[in-house]
């Protein structure tokens, strides 16, 4: 019996198998899924919110909700897409709650302060640090679309679903985000 449970934690098992087992109530299979995907979800939330603590809270909520809703998941292979969608949504909601005025000027958008990311102080290059600051200048929607596409490699269709929008609108937001970010990346300015 011990061997049976060890088996479930083998990292070589594919996601769909782990999801199917977790759906049957196999906690160890679910733990493996958490270990596999908490990192990407945390990094998405961290770059969206520029706060480690808030990002961790969101990751915890996302995985608890996912466990509760496993039974409703139509396809085992849809799990990861669902994680990205839920994490994105929760981040956008958290940002809305932070800034009650929905469409404030870009100038008023909160810039992530460097003291909010103590972990990066040492190792991050000036270039990446400039990019992280510039991300804070984008609208939350632009930031979500850009991060999902350029950092997490999700498809336009998936991103459109995650931010409840059309593929055309997502492409437009990413193009705008890229133009804005590229402008900040000019070293001689």
């Amino acid at each position, binding site marked *: *019996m011990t061997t049976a449970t060890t088996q479930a934690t083998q990292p070589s098992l594919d996601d769909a198998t782990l999801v199917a087992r977790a759906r049957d109530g196999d*906690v160890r299979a679910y733990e493996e899924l958490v270990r596999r995907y*908490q990192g990407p979800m945390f*990094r998405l939330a961290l770059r969206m919110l520029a706060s480690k603590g808030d990002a961790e809270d969101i990751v915890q909520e996302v995985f608890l909700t996912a466990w509760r809703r496993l039974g409703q998941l139509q396809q085992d292979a849809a799990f990861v897409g669902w994680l990205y969608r839920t994490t994105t949504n929760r981040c956008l909601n958290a940002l809305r709650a932070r800034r009650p005025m929905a469409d404030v000027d870009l100038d008023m958008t909160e810039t992530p302060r460097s003291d909010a990311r103590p972990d990066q102080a040492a190792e991050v290059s000036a270039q990446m640090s400039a990019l992280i600051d510039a991300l804070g200048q984008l609208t939350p929607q632009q930031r979500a679309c850009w991060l999902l596409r350029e950092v997490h490699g999700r498809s336009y269709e998936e991103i459109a679903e995650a931010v409840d929008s059309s593929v055309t609108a997502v492409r437009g937001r990413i193009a*705008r985000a*890229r133009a804005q970010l590229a402008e900040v990346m000019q070293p001689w300015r």
Partner: protein
Amino acid sequence: MAVETSYDLPCGRSLEQLWDHIDAADEHERACPHCSTARHSLRALREATDELAADRVQPRIDLTERIMSAVRAEIRGRGEMLPLDAGDTLQVSEQAVAVVLRFAADEIEGVRARRCRVRAVGVEDGQTVLHAELTVATTYRDDLAELLATVRDRVMAACAASVGVRLARLDLRLADFYDR
């Protein structure tokens, strides 16, 4: 906030065009000062983006444990309790039996058990009779029928040997193939 829809440079090229073939700039793009400036920025952005994508900043070390204890706190039902004898004095959970059956299938090379449902269908000669439904994924192979027959034999045998009840019927479903 004004929504700009196009990012044309003074020379008429768009930023999107530049981005699309940033590694294969044409003659104009190499000569034009506007294009050249924009290409430098896009390149710097791409480098920083690669760095961001490769970044592996981790959440607090006990996050998994925090998540899992919340999960365990509201653990789903362990499934039905199945009677082991006619007198109903011995019971085993559906989940416990499912673990045994899944493990028997997992032990066969090229087979991964996925979902498993078990129910008691009656009592024969004082012994509980079970029906089970097991979903598996296998590697691609040309002896599938033989493989599934092995799965069936092993799972039936495991149920008798480890749980001590007869598995009268096993519905085996091949749900997926996986790469080795």
